[in-house]
């Protein structure tokens, strides 16, 4: 039993904190006993070009991959090669972003309703009326569309909510800051901001523009969490929720793959929902150590950059991880791999996201984290 499983970690691109943290988590797990003896992990980065990722998958299949853990750059363009890989016995596990090819396992929070829940939170904070900005992700991207569709489902119910500006921030702090600054030039009287990743840039843009802060929702950057908990900023008007895409998804995907390969679990290809992190301002709690313990969910200033995405841990699913794993891909000293809980949460069908010609459930945008406190 000395033949190691050949597992590829296929990134589309690397370069923002989120992507490297997700990759580091997989690397750290693969180096944690007993996986360190069972796995040969090879990382491949192929850029934002689907053609390059197709070519990379092909090479991996050819090289005899047992499994591929991947952040797919496109939800549809890779289907063909994935199918070919499945036919050769390769297991595909996507994390965060998904593909519509049914033979792949998608592990993602996308179906967990980030858009609608965060939108409702914002509406609640605004008392059901006000001018807001939508700071979106990458134009023409299915994840961005899902988030925004969910949010718009809520906003549309409130005639008092006016979308003053809607711009694309490419899930990047700097771009968010610049685009928000532009929008502020046209609408200095904005009342709230609904943002996807890069949200910390929106706070900085508000600070650049003047003294006023407004209620906002965004994803999981350490910067947002610290800001939400900061009394000065609260005094200036900042309230809101931090939710969104957790890099820890990659670790869950990788462990599932390993359990299947090592025969600890049998599971047909399916869509698996990763829980949506949900941290309202009141729940922000600083961690003293290197992991999420005692319900802490943010790190003190200086320990990590503000763009650091905090949701790298999951005490139930990924107890093996520490800050060192997320930042450098190193295993936590002394840790060993713990089994996953037996049951998984199946994700609902979302056409174009995790299935091709499927019907979405009737309650697609149902709220799970928050309830309306104002009526339309």
């Amino acid at each position, binding site marked *: 039993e000395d033949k190691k499983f050949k597992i590829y970690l296929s*990134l589309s691109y690397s370069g923002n904190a989120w992507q490297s943290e997700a990759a580091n988590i997989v690397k750290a797990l693969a180096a944690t006993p007993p996986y360190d003896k069972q796995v040969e992990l*090879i*990382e*491949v*980065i*192929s*850029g*934002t*070009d*689907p*053609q*390059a990722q*197709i*070519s*990379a998958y*092909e*090479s991996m299949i*050819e*090289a005899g991959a047992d499994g591929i853990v991947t952040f797919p750059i*496109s*939800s*549809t*363009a*890779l*289907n*063909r090669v994935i199918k070919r890989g499945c036919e050769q016995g390769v297991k595909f596990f996507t994390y965060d972003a998904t593909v519509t090819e049914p033979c792949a396992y998608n592990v993602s929070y996308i179906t967990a309703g980030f858009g609608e829940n965060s939108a409702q939170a914002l509406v609640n904070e605004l008392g059901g009326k006000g001018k807001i900005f939508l700071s979106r992700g*990458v*134009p*023409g*991207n*299915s994840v*961005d*569309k899902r988030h925004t569709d969910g949010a718009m489902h809520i906003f549309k119910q409130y005639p008092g909510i006016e979308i003053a500006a809607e711009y694309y921030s490419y899930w990047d702090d700097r771009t968010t800051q610049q685009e928000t600054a532009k929008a502020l030039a046209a609408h200095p009287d904005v009342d709230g901001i609904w943002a996807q990743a890069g949200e910390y840039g929106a706070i900085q843009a508000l600070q650049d523009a003047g003294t006023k802060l407004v209620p906002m929702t965004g994803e999981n950057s350490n910067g947002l969490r610290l800001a939400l908990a900061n009394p000065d900023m609260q005094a200036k008007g900042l309230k809101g929720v931090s939710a969104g895409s957790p890099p820890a998804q990659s670790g869950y995907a990788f462990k599932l793959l390993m359990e299947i390969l090592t025969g600890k679990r049998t599971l047909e290809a399916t869509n698996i929902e990763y829980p949506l992190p949900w941290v309202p301002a009141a729940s922000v709690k600083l961690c003293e150590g290197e992991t999420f313990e005692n319900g802490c969910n943010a790190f003190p200033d200086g320990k990590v950059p503000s763009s650091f995405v905090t949701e790298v841990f999951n005490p139930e699913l990924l107890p093996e991880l520490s800050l060192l794993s997320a930042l450098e891909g190193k295993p936590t000293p002394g840790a060993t791999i713990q089994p996953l809980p037996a049951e998984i949460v199946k994700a609902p069908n979302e056409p*174009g996201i995790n299935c*091709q010609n499927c019907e979405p459930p009737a309650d697609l945008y149902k709220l799970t984290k928050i309830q309306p406190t104002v009526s339309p």
Partner: protein
Amino acid sequence: MSASAVQPLERNGGGRKSSWVRALTSGAAIVTLLYVVLYALYAMWEPRALSSYTFTNLINNAAPLAIAAAGETLVVLSRGFDLSVAGVVSLTNVFMAVWPMEGPGGALISLLGCCAIGAVVGTVNGWLVAVLRLQTIAATLGTMIVCQGLALVILDAPGGMVADWVSYELTGTLFGVVPIAGLIIAAVALLWLVFLRTNTGIGIYAVGADEQAAMLSGVSVTRVRFAAFVGAGMLYGVAGFMLSAQTATGNPNAGAPFLMLVFAAVALGGTSLSGGRGGLIGSIVGAGCLMLLQKVLFSGGVSSFYTGIFQGFVLILAILFGRFMPRLFNAGAKK
């Protein structure tokens, strides 16, 4: 004493002989040699590289870029930069995914549709550049952005389905060995060889070398520029068509990665980015090299963090290689 004893410090750039030889000289031949070398490396590290399956994949993968680079070559030869390639590829990809047409007949209509989209964009470019005399790079930046916008209007997120016939037949093989995509590339190359032997084809070289002298030689600069842009647009359309066959779905951003890569392919293929020298076949093989390089680095086991470093240096070395090979040939021939 040899007549070449004086080494001019500045090279005037190699000229070209007849239109026949033009297609085969320097650029294309050298980049082909480079391709062979890369393939040999690939085969050395990955024995399966020699299988028809792998080869077909490789061709399928390279076809869209190769055809787009072929189109770009037309504009570059006439001394221009055409950024609209990214827009047209996105637009045609979205067109293929939103309005799939089944069967060979449907495929033909789709192909014509893609060409028509490319031709319309090319005509607008031609008008902006040849008639209004805007700078090519600026004018086509504008049309690229417009096309990207239209692609987003038609399809606001990846999705749609390309017709099965297109996505299966065009990525398959003929008699189990000849990749269909390869045949389409060959058809483009053949068309080029024909075009090269038309007045407009030669006119492109003339305009690219010296627009004013071309005009004084009786070449209709306007017509030639139009032809270059329209031809290029149509080839981008074909590239979008082939990309759709490969990915089987639509993506409003599908063309974005092509923007830089086509120019790399063109330059690698030996076409001068300042016009008048080079050819389309070189660009096709240049695109092949770029795609093959990824495979070589993968099979060579280069660590992912550092693949970029290798890619960069290989790019530089490839150009140097292209520079020194002809000198070696010449030196050999002189003896």
